[in-house]
């Protein structure tokens, strides 16, 4: 919402400075977004009086002018056809910067004649498009005065952000009321005296439905004007509209715009000669169309409120008039429409038709219903003043919407809600100045003014009082402590997120944050793409489906980095993925990809490409970091089909999947344009069972043996399909008290090992607790290991 300082002062009697007004507006909740003063760009330009203009001796189209600048007479060579002796124009002295041409003036000689400065056109000063001649000021302009003053442009333009609840501040009068309520001046009433009609209106208003307070258009007033003279509106009005960025059109249209922005009262005027019979407020009929004032044709339906005559539709209620019945410069017969349209229906129609207009903007936020009456009066006065003619009696149809209501404000409520102690008298005064009718001395009963549809309860009254009294008077009170020391912010499950993030960063990976959505095709490839997870209004096809896995976005990110020459990315993300649209379908996942080299080529050793075991290490590190019982988990083949079928696996606790890991399926890597291997993992952070709440944080007792552990190596020959983990587990379980650990130290297939077999070498650590083992005891354990492994896997000891 824009307005000028002088416009505001038409409604507000105040001595306050622009800075005070600016600060107060913001502190009232009418945030000032900017103040521009056209006088700034006109600084240095002054009114010049052309003492004499004579033909240039050496150029047909130029004149040599003697210009009185108020501080002496200078000679200027001017090419404008309208430069003449005795005129007053805008003079730019040498050294001036001309905004329209980007040139800084220098004293010069033009075809032998001295020229010191310039007489300017509208375009050169960026005041308009006119470049047919220099600006021709009225003769009463004062020689030597500032150009801004002479042009009436010495008027700062203030732009404020009006929140959706404050429809009343979409007119300058309402803004002035807020300022006055806050003590920054006095609100001046606006002129809205009733002007009697001199004849009966040939057009009447009717309703196509029974008008009720909650109808799409509960009430409409109108008036017929005859013998009016349209055409350009007066300077002051044009200037006012231009200052806030509106284009003057004709006196009648400009009046409707003025009343809209001055009093938040949208109006419409019809060329009455183009109407047929009475006007009716009704719902559009299926198939009806209208060519609106914006030059576009809209197809209407019964949900849209329209204004129609006996033949066709001439307006979309509260949104826009029709092109066919709009006023023209030669219009002499006018019918004025002053209506109240229901906010919700206006918003719905406007949204459906896709029309933004100043009228819709106001009706959908809720204008003053009483304005149908005073709006008619204000418009009548302006039409008669600016266009002449005579007005008919007022015609009306419908009933006033229900706006009268009041609320009780308890005496302690402002304080208990905002901590400000507003004196009782100030409380009542503030509400009164805002237009409330206040009775009582606390508790108060406040009757809401017709222009404040946003006030719907006591809390709103509290806000009005505190906002006007000043939010800066709210004391800052630290929250009282709930306990002497702080408690954990996150619960144990929530804490898994930062733990996972920090574990992966500690492993040299870089954390990324990527979109929750991805292209449908990728969703499908990664096991998703359900209809319930496809956005109905995505901004791009690349972002149209909720991700079933974090990996595709990370793979894309890795590819983007490679394309930029940033090699061997190792990226992870801890975030959501979506199985379905229910709250339980959203899973917390730690996922990562490592591309190409785990160790780059370097002086100390060879490069090493990433493989499934890097991903396995990452997945297990995350599980360990979040406190999952990793020692009870098994890793074996069985990852989903976006992994390499032979080089991937699942980490499980019992039957439950804790994580997937492995090399990415080469097809997917190729599709992403990633050359070289990609290791990937997905850890489901909510999958490991939550730790049991324990009464003590004490660890189990640590028992340390006084006896040396000893290690024995075994080389087994086993079917190539047997998973190492199964064999190791069998070895470990051969004697749970003596065997402390078992690990694989070699895997071999090839020469010396039969086809279809592999050699698995493991080292088993024996830890005696009570005494040193005898050779016989050691041998017994070793035999047990060989037997157990053979039983579990069919392995034989390699000869």
């Amino acid at each position, binding site marked *: 919402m824009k307005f000028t300082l002088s416009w505001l002062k038409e409604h507000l009697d105040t001595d306050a400075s622009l800075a005070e007004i600016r600060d107060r507006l913001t502190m*009232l*909740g009418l*945030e000032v977004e900017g103040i521009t003063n056209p006088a700034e760009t006109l600084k240095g330009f002054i009114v010049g009086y052309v003492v004499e203009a004579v033909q240039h001796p050496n150029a047909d189209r130029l004149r040599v002018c003697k210009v009185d600048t108020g501080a002496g007479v200078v000679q200027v060579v001017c090419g404008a056809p309208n430069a003449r002796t005795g005129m007053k124009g805008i003079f730019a002295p040498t050294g001036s910067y001309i905004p329209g041409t980007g040139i800084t003036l220098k004293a010069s000689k033009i075809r032998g004649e001295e020229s010191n400065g310039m007489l300017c056109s509208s375009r050169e000063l960026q005041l308009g498009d006119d470049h047919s001649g220099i600006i021709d000021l009225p003769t009463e302009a004062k020689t030597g005065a500032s150009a801004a003053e002479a042009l009436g442009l010495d008027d700062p333009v203030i732009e404020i952000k009006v929140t*959706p609840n*404050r429809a009343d501040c979409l007119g300058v009068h309402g803004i002035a009321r807020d300022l006055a309520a806050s003590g920054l001046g006095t609100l001046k009433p606006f002129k809205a005296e009733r002007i009697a009609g001199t004849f009966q209106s040939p057009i009447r208003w009717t309703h196509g439905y029974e008008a009720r307070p909650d109808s799409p258009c509960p009430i409409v007033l109108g008036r017929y004007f005859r013998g009016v003279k349209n055409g350009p509106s007066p300077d002051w009005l044009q200037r006012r509209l231009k200052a806030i960025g509106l284009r003057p059109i004709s006196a009648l249209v400009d009046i409707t715009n003025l009343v809209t922005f001055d009093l938040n009262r949208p109006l419409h005027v019809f060329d009455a000669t183009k109407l047929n019979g009475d006007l009716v407020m009704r719902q559009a009929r299926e198939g009806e169309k209208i060519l609106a004032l914006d030059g576009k044709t809209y197809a209407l339906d019964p949900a849209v409120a329209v204004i129609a005559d006996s033949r066709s539709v001439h307006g979309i209620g509260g949104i826009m008039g029709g092109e066919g019945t709009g006023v023209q410069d030669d219009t002499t017969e006018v019918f004025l429409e002053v209506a109240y349209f229901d*906010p919700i229906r206006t*918003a719905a129609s406007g949204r459906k038709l896709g029309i933004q207009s100043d009228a819709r903007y106001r009706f959908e936020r809720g204008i003053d219903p009483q304005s149908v009456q005073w709006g008619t009066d204000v418009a009548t006065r302006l039409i008669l003043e600016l266009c002449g003619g005579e007005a008919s009696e007022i015609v009306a149809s419908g009933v006033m919407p229900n706006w009268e209501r009041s609320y009780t404000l308890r005496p302690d409520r402002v*304080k*208990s*809600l*905002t901590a*400000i102690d507003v004196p009782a008298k100030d409380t009542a005064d503030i509400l009164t100045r805002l237009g409330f009718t206040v009775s009582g001395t606390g508790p108060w009963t406040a009757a809401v003014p017709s222009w404040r549809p946003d006030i719907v*309860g*006591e*809390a709103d009254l*509290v*806000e009005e009082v505190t906002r006007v009294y000043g939010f*800066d008077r*709210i004391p800052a009170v*630290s*929250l009282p*402590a*709930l*306990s002497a020391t*702080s*408690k954990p*912010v*996150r619960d144990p499950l*929530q804490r898994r*997120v*930062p733990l996972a993030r*920090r*574990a*992966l*960063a*500690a492993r*040299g990976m*870089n*954390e*990324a*944050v990527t*979109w929750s*959505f991805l292209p449908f095709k990728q969703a499908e490839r990664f096991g998703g793409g359900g209809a*319930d997870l496809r*956005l*109905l209004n995505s*901004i791009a096809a690349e972002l149209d489906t*909720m991700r079933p896995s974090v990996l595709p976005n*990370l793979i894309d990110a890795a590819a*983007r*980095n490679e394309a930029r020459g*940033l090699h061997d990315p190792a990226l992870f993300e801890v*975030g959501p993925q*979506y199985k379905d*649209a229910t*709250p339980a379908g*959203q899973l917390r996942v730690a996922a990562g990809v490592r591309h190409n080299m785990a*160790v780059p080529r*370097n*002086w100390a050793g060879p490069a090493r490409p990433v493989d499934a075991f890097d991903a396995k290490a990452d997945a297990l590190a995350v599980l360990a970091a979040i406190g999952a019982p990793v020692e009870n988990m098994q890793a074996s083949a069985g990852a989903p089909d976006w992994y390499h079928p032979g080089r991937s696996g699942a980490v499980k606790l019992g039957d439950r999947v804790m994580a997937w890991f492995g090399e990415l399926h080469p097809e997917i890597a190729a599709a992403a344009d990633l050359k070289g291997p990609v290791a990937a993992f997905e850890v489901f952070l909510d999958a490991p069972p939550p730790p049991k709440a324990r009464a003590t944080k004490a660890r189990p007792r640590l028992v340390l043996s006084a006896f040396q552990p000893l290690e024995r190596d075994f080389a087994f020959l086993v079917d190539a399909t047997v998973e190492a983990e199964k064999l190791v587990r069998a070895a470990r379980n051969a004697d749970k008290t003596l065997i402390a650990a078992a690990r694989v130290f070699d895997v071999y297939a090839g020469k010396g090992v039969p086809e279809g077999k592999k050699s698995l070498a493991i080292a088993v650590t024996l830890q005696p607790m009570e005494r040193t083992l005898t050779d016989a005891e050691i041998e017994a354990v070793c035999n047990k290991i060989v037997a157990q492994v053979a039983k579990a896997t069919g392995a034989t000891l390699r000869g």
Partner: protein
Amino acid sequence: MDDLSTIRSEALAAVAAAADLSALDAVRVAALGKKGNVTGLMKTLGTLPPEQRKDFGARVNQLKGEIEAALEARKATLGASALAAKLAAEKVDISLPARPESQGTLHPIGQVMDELAAIFGEMGFTWAEGPDIEDDWHNFSALNIPPDHPARQMQDTFYLPSRADGTPMVLRTHTSPVQARTMLNKAVQQMLANDGSLRIIVPGRTFRIDSDATHTPMFHQVEGLVIDRTTHMGHLKGCLVDFCRAFFEVDDLPLRFRPSYFPFTEPSAEVDIGCSWKDGELRIGAGDSWLEILGSGMVHPNVIANCGLDPAVYQGFAFGMGIDRIAMLKYGIPDLRSFFDSDLRWLRHYGFSALEWPSLTQGLAR
């Protein structure tokens, strides 16, 4: 007699001449070995008359001692120089780089979430979460935004197919639906009935149809909610002053509360922090300018009622701010879109180390 002094001078000369440990050992064997000449002298002891034995034995022993001492001394010298030579031969070019190890980093969004946890944790808040895919009741209606309210146009919403029962589904446009989810929780209502105080922060992903230089279709918000019987707007102000000063690490940071409008709060306030601009660079702290950082207010009585609590009994405040935005402000990150681009150069430059776990007592940020 002369034998002894000859042997001495020859042996000592040989010790001194030994160039390495094996030569020295040969000298030792020649003198003191089983067939060595000193050992040989010892063997002649038995052939001497008894009156000479004692004297001769003592002299031979003294000689043996002298040679042994010389051998030891020489051995130490030779050992030291052998070690020095070995060390010299083992010299490497120590300016070569350490073995390659990549430095992992944390994204600023997660790091700032951890900072939020540290600060609000100190004020008694706990962490709450809710789904990104919301039904429109939790996202709008519960928060006093009815279907045709113009406020719904303030937010451009991503829609998903409606549920089977016709409920429209959206990607949450703010973290505020978690207010409703939390207040509706029976355990929370019981805690409030027992005079407890609800204090939660809700960090998370939020979504709006918006994509330009300063907007991304996904961004992050943190919601704060305090509900009990007595919390007022002064507490809101105090809480946010305390938070902003701790977060931006500026002890005298001024805050400005301006009236504003949100459907779910009444009264509503937007909050600015003091700042100044110098040579196009922002400095947060007392200055001549203000920077909007969050929206807040007292929870609207309709919201409290919609969540099954009595607004005549319970009141409190709520606020919401952009996590990405405060991260940009604090760490001087210029472009929002870059947060989601995963450019390794950006991640390394603006990222944090795994060991920087923010804490008010250990330090919030380096």
